[in-house]
């Protein structure tokens, strides 16, 4: 039953997603706490045309993917805030409009350009996709993310809980927030080979929402989010190994979804079906 351990592509995928979990978990945790889950989802789709244009122009290189993805992410973020500021449409609506255009444009270029990457792996990931470059990308993403968190954790926590207090204390209050959004895009790019562009954000959000039901300290939250992300990746990859028609992205996200529903039902801050029924306080 451990035959999946004998395949190199599988070992690569397991190693890559383990490192990725270290990095994507804290990012997802704060994305959820900052009420940016949907913005993260939109951002994940918004970066697609950048990645695709990178593909079509420069082929399958990690550098072109990062440059294209970051450029598209920043463009959509800037356009969103400009539209929200200078027109009557609110931020959520302009973000939704732009990411839909962006996603459609990406898929259009990918199909018309005749890329070497099959559309299915592009959208939903593949366990076969973990080449050396992807491993380096994930390693670099994790390094940048963890070092960044060591530096910005305190201002990030402050600005999440008490934004006005944060503003009163910092000469550049926006810096932390912008750096955090950069980390979001970076981790989406890191997750993209294993999970695909449509599923990458799921590994960011689901472990974080599931973990929130169980804990009430920040350290506990970050650790549990990581463990849930790791468990989802491993179980999902093994699932995808046996059901070989199933791409790895949906398999991983379905495992994360199962953890989420178990948490909703049984965790103390969810519906709490495991809780001992105490006499009602009133």
């Amino acid at each position: 039953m451990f035959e999946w351990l004998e395949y190199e592509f599988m070992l690569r995928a397991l190693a890559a997603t383990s490192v990725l979990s270290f990095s994507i978990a804290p990012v997802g945790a704060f994305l959820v706490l900052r009420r940016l889950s949907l913005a993260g989802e939109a951002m994940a789709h918004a970066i697609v045309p950048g990645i695709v244009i990178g593909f079509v122009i420069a082929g399958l290189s990690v550098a072109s993917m990062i440059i294209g993805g970051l450029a598209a992410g920043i463009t959509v973020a800037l356009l969103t805030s400009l539209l929200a500021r200078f027109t009557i449409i609110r931020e959520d609506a302009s973000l939704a409009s732009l990411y839909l255009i962006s996603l459609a444009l990406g898929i259009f270029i990918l199909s018309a350009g005749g890329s070497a990457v099959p559309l299915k792996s592009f959208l939903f990931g593949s366990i076969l996709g973990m080449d050396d470059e992807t491993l380096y990308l994930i390693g670099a993403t994790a390094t940048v993310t963890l070092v960044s968190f060591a530096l910005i954790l305190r201002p990030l926590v402050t600005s999440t809980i008490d934004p006005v207090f944060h503003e009163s204390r910092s000469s550049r209050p926006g810096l932390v927030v912008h750096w955090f959004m950069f980390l979001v895009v970076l981790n989406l790019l890191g997750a993209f080979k294993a999970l695909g562009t449509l599923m990458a954000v799921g590994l960011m959000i689901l472990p974080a929402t599931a973990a929130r039901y169980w804990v009430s300290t920040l350290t506990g939250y970050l650790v549990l989010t990581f463990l849930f992300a790791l468990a989802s990746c491993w179980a999902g990859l093994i699932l995808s190994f046996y059901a070989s028609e199933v791409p790895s992205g949906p398999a991983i996200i379905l495992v994360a979804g199962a953890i989420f529903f178990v948490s909703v039902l049984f965790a103390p801050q969810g519906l709490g079906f495991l809780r001992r029924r105490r006499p009602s306080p009133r």
Partner: protein
Amino acid sequence: MVLSANELTLGYRGQAVVSNVSFHVAAGDVLAVVGHNGSGKSTLVKTILGTLPLIGGELSWHGGVPSEIAFLGQRSEFDTRVPIRLRDIVEMGAWSRLGFAGRIDPAGRAAIEAAMERTGTAAIADTPLHMLSAGQLQRALFARTIVQDAPVILLDEPFTAIDQSTEADLLALIDQWSGEGRAVIMVLHDLSAVLQHCHAALLLGRGTARFGPLDTTLTPANLVDLAYLTPSQAAWQERMFSRDAGSLSGGGDV
């Protein structure tokens, strides 16, 4: 003198909300800022914090811009669903001195414990944020303000939706800050007993401002003039006030 404001014009993107704002605060002063909704109270708070540029006038910090203004904002802007404990909120008061990763030393640790002791939150230090009542949260935020140990303290509606005993405890703390020579500026939502703890008032309204001692500034005439009260409310308040004063001074008549 800690802070003096001369003929300030305050507002957003060049649009004035209020002008002719002049006031001064000395060490140990408690200044109340009162005004109707939209009179510019929050605008003034942001201007003092330095997050909003002045449109006109002069705001001078005597003895240099303080390295830290201890600011306590309205609780509606506070997110209580973040998984942290009361103790962490109080610790936030020390973070700006510690920089990115500095550890809290034993003295800092002791200061945090003392602040929780002083505000009556030591026993609930490990309670998660979402389990705290409004009063407990406000006590924790006052503890955070103590830990900040700042020469200037700025409070935005600190007593909204707070029960009487918490209000009394927190007002005692404001008296203590004043005694320690800190300057306290406090935005108040309504004219309440809290005003007894203030030394001066800044009344904002109808795009202008009045400043001075409480009894000459918050007069019925001024309150009506700056749209804080309607004339009939003011007349009622004056009747109540004179009856109180009468019963206090001429006690033997009845």
